[in-house]
């Protein structure tokens, strides 16, 4: 057994005749922050969508905790320990902040959907444990004062924090963060970096898509670079920064012959 909590092997994804991902290999281990970078349209979000089960890949393997998850329904994959946030915040806007997090926490409970209707002792215990866990996570993210507000009324930064809290409520092993720093000011980016490092130290495997290079280079243990659906480089932040193919891809050099 490897300690790779998430591993993507030879992943190819075609939409009609368009190849969005070609033979991509990635992995994230326990207690590691891996970053996935690349120009717009390189296929980064497609990696997330395949990994979470939203798309079935044309070929290749996705292993979560050394177990193939290809063909599993997305909600099963989520319950097996994969949680994500979104590039454009996607909260349940008409639910309160607390309820958003409880929705994530619910899938860890014993009582099923139908059982929850009947107010049995177990269902009340579950309801309480979802409530407690959600309150703790809001506290951890520093937004417990927002608990009773509707998610859509939260300021933008708190909405992003809420998304992370909701993802953590699933008790995931692997956390996929899709541009978590988008729209943050420099101070907020520093705080976010600290938070992500804290999550890593708590034992999560973090896979990060991010455009803010200073943040990526500061916190990542390993960086993978996608361009036109192919992985063109991988290594420590400093290795990747000095890689000629990466520099070409970002500067938009037409000739890839190097």
């Amino acid at each position, binding site marked *: 057994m490897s300690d790779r909590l998430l591993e993507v092997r030879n992943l190819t994804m075609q939409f009609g005749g368009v190849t969005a991902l070609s033979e991509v290999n990635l992995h994230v281990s326990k207690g590691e922050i891996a970053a996935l970078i690349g120009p717009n349209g390189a296929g980064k979000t497609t990696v997330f969508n395949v990994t979470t089960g939203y798309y079935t890949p044309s070929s290749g393997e996705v292993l979560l905790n050394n177990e193939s998850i290809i063909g599993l329904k997305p909600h099963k994959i989520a319950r097996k320990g994969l949680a994500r946030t979104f590039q454009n915040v996607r909260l*349940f806007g008409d639910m309160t902040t607390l309820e958003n997090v409880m929705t994530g926490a619910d899938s860890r409970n014993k009582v*099923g959907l139908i059982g929850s209707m009947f107010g049995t002792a177990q269902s009340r215990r579950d309801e309480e444990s979802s409530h407690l866990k959600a309150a703790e996570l809001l506290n951890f993210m520093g937004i417990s004062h927002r608990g009773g507000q509707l998610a859509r009324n939260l300021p933008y930064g708190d909405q992003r924090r809420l998304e992370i809290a909701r993802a953590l409520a699933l008790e995931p092993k692997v956390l996929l963060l899709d541009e978590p720093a988008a729209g943050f000011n420099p101070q907020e980016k520093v705080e976010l970096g600290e938070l992500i490092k804290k999550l890593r130290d708590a034992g999560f495997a973090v896979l990060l898509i991010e455009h803010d290079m200073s943040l990526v280079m500061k916190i990542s243990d390993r960086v993978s670079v996608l361009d036109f659906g192919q992985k063109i480089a991988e290594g420590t932040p400093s290795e990747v920064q000095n890689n000629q193919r990466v520099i070409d891809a970002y500067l938009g050099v037409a000739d890839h012959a190097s």
Partner: protein
Amino acid sequence: MDFSIVVSEFASLFLDGIVVGAIYALVALGYTLVYGVLRLINFAHSEIFMLGTFACLGVTMLLGYTGYEEPIGIGLFLVTFILITVVAAVASGSAAMLLEVVAYRRLRRKGANRLSSLISAIGASFFLVELFRLLTDSKDWDFPRLLDKNSLFEVSSAYVTADKLVVLIGAFGLMFALDRIIQGTRLGRGIRAVSQDEKTAVLMGVDVDKVIAFTFLIGGVLAGVASAFYMLFYEATKFNVGFLLGISAFTAAVLGGIGNIRGALAGSFALGLIQQFSSAILGYNWRDVVTFLILVLVLLFKPTGLFGEAIQRARV
């Protein structure tokens, strides 16, 4: 037109409007809940109600009521009526779940557009109506009078009778229970999460197929209970009983804002009152004209209803 009746009979019309509205509300909730999770008008929902009325009738037949008995005592009535209600709720609830599997689930899995599902809904509705036309000989079926309907007490011009009290207490109790489920349980959060953003709900571990199935179950159970109240109040049914009642409940849901639960309740009571008062003024024959007029006017001028989202989104 006689407007003086509105004044002289105000309390009576008001009471009946609330009673009728309570029955509409239980049916309207089924439309609005299913619309919430699927963005689909379940046009076969009225037939789920119709099926419930015949389940009620079936129970009284099995118990040996012929319709010529003296009304039974309150204790025996309650036991009998609870049995009738439970059977109707089970029949309608399971029929609604079956309907989802047969008429909608495969289309949804294949990613068919909502128009296909809408056509499937109308097809399922026709199927059930015609099936029950055959099974029931196209006849009017009378429901035995179980309860003494003499007035218990009067409030102004309103005669408060036991059946109206049963409907009101039962319906309000059920609405309260539903509110508790939607606001304070895992299933309720699942239903709301799927209604607001299905794809995200899935990624938060919500089993959408189950949430949808149980939404149909809840809608069906409410329609089943509504059918028992309807039979107690109107004491007759027919294979096409669902059509006008369904249109009224649907209008109420649209009036309140489709997809909005509290809106469905408000719309139902509003429509019940409007129907009673307009019938008193214009004559009973105008009741359905008024209903359809409201439906058209809401769709034209206030498609979001009082609280909800535009019904037009359902057409995508």
